[in-house]
């Protein structure tokens, strides 16, 4: 089966300047995303996971050009998004939609749901005025909101329903790629499950491709095909879902997975790896491997030499760690 790459990110860097000093000049940079590359194939779900400050949300924003990346290429359907001017990019946004964590903040409180959706349709001019009403009804139906609720305002809906409206808005323009930035993180467990199921269902129905940004590894395991683990602006591990969850190779991924409290009370607990200290500042990230300051396996060379992504298996499982130079490491 040949897979078609829908999104290709090459050497993406996103530095944010820090102003300061006597004359308010740029004194330093926050290296939020520092030279990452990955591919998203058509129809799949790729998740980007990591803790706060790892650069996962910045990556999503950079792809949509909500911030302008410092350098790199973002190829969408073969076209470099970073080469487009503002007007062309606006048109392109029809194909790339985003769903945020807090749908409330992104829904105009003075517009009814119908107005919100009609406006979205109007901007991208996908359907004629006459068809719009029907399309709005269809969209709401698709996300599980009744047509009778169409003329209500966002505050009249619960958090889960608002997220459904956010999804409906994203879908209104028939996008190819949907970036879900912590889209279910603010929802209660029972509602989160509903929204996750909805996202999966919609993916099949409309052949959507998802870039799913989340800190919740349970959610990620459920929804993704492939997973990218980030730490301090770098990709530390990337791989197929099962391979990554059953056989995590990077010490950070291992620590991350073992740190999640499990609801398995009956089974004997696995040895937990507790990392020491906090994530270092992205302003002055550690030299060499960025994880070496907290890594239980750190060697001398980790402090000086930055590890490359090493291929570990045939299912495109890669991790950036010196331990893995000669293939998978035996952690037992």
């Amino acid at each position, binding site marked *: 089966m040949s897979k078609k790459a829908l999104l290709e990110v090459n050497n993406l860097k996103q530095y944010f300047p820090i102003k300061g000093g006597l004359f308010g000049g740029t004194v330093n940079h926050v290296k939020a995303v520092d030279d990452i590359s990955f591919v998203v194939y058509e129809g799949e779900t790729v998740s980007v996971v990591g803790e706060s400050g790892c650069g996962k949300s910045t990556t999503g924003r950079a792809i949509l050009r909500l911030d302008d990346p410092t350098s790199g290429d973002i190829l969408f359907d073969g076209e470099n998004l970073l080469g487009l001017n503002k007007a062309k990019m606006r048109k392109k946004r029809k194909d790339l939609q985003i769903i945020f964590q807090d749908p409330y903040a992104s829904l105009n409180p003075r517009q009814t749901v119908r107005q919100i959706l009609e406006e979205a349709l109007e901007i991208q001019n996908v359907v004629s005025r006459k068809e719009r009403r029907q399309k709005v009804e269809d969209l709401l139906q698709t996300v599980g909101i009744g047509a009778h609720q169409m003329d209500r305002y966002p505050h009249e809906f619960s958090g889960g*329903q608002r997220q459904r409206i956010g999804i409906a808005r994203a879908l209104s323009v028939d996008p190819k790629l949907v970036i879900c930035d912590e889209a279910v993180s603010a929802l*209660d467990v029972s509602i989160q*499950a*509903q929204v996750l199921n909805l996202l999966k269902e919609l993916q099949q129905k409309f052949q959507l491709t998802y870039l799913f940004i989340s800190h919740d590894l349970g959610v990620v395991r459920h929804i993704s095909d492939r997973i990218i683990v980030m730490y301090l602006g770098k990709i530390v591990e990337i791989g197929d879902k099962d391979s990554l969850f059953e056989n995590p190779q990077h010490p950070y991924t291992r620590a991350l997975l073992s740190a*999640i*409290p499990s609801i398995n009370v009956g089974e004997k607990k696995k040895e937990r790896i507790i990392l020491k200290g906090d994530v270092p500042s992205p302003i002055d990230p550690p030299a060499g491997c960025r994880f070496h300051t907290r890594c239980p396996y750190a060697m001398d060379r980790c402090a000086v030499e930055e590890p490359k992504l090493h291929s570990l298996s045939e299912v495109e499982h890669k991790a950036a760690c010196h331990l893995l130079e000669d293939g998978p490491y035996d952690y037992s």
Partner: protein
Amino acid sequence: MTISNQENILEVRNLCTSFFTDEGEVKAVDGVDFSIEKGKTIGIVGESGSGKSITSLSIMRLVQEPAGKVVDGEIVFKGENLLTKTKKEMRDIRGNKISMIFQEPMTSLNPTLTCGEQIAESLRIHQKLNRKEARVKAIEMLKLVGIPSPEKRVKQYPFELSGGMRQRVMIAIALACNPELLIADEPTTALDVTIQAQILELIKKLQEELGTSLMIITHDLGVVAEMCDRVAVMYCGKVVEYADVKTIFTDPKHPYTIGLLNSVPRHDLKVEGELSVIKGSVPSPFELPSGCRFVTRCPHAREICHRELPALETKEDGNQVRCWIHTDQWEKQAEAVSTHE
């Protein structure tokens, strides 16, 4: 009235806390019973609107009046009802005998006071230490909660610390006077998972060392499984199931508990296909169903469930469940036509 059990540090009986809004009374906590055995950990789980946080604030008598008020019940701490205490007596208990840590370490510390000052404050109030003694003890506390170079940190302001560090400072404040009961309201919800692991480990370690009883309020079932001995599951202001942690996770009885457990996406299990879900959403507090609170979302609901609120029945093993299915009534009930498809 039940006789107070000597082994229990805290007994909550028929606690009712309401908020009085323009649209009417909201019974945020509606007849909640549970107890905490000395040195043990209880978890209160539930989703937003379940009343779990209000329960903890009620115990501390920190519900903001006049909008909110504890309208009924007893909160018996070491044999004495906290609800009849005077303001001054309550102040002597708070931060001294019962302490609390909150969800948001970012906003729960005063931005204009140093960390040291915020720890020292409790010590000066409750243990009548002078400035210098309190400072020495504050440094000791920072060391205890695993903050590196405490002599330096004691002079720093909260904004100079990371989220994890701030939560450690919160724990230091809470444990400064060696309380008998620690209430942790979503202590790790705002933290990253590797930091959460550190903080949970720390709380567990300190609980063992100091013999503190612990009450954890959380929506995270993983945290409950990890930390608690007993669990109370709350839904719409009521406890629907109250059992030991093993039973809750391996043999849950209430349909809500079962639904909740099934809807958690698992990182540690290979599951394909859809997540099982609880349909619908939590009813508005102004439109609570007249019978069982869960009836609108329950897959097993029968006629009696719509009509009458089930009691919290105690089983032989001491576990409790509030559901008609687990009563003698259930079999007698003719299967009513479900109102749902």
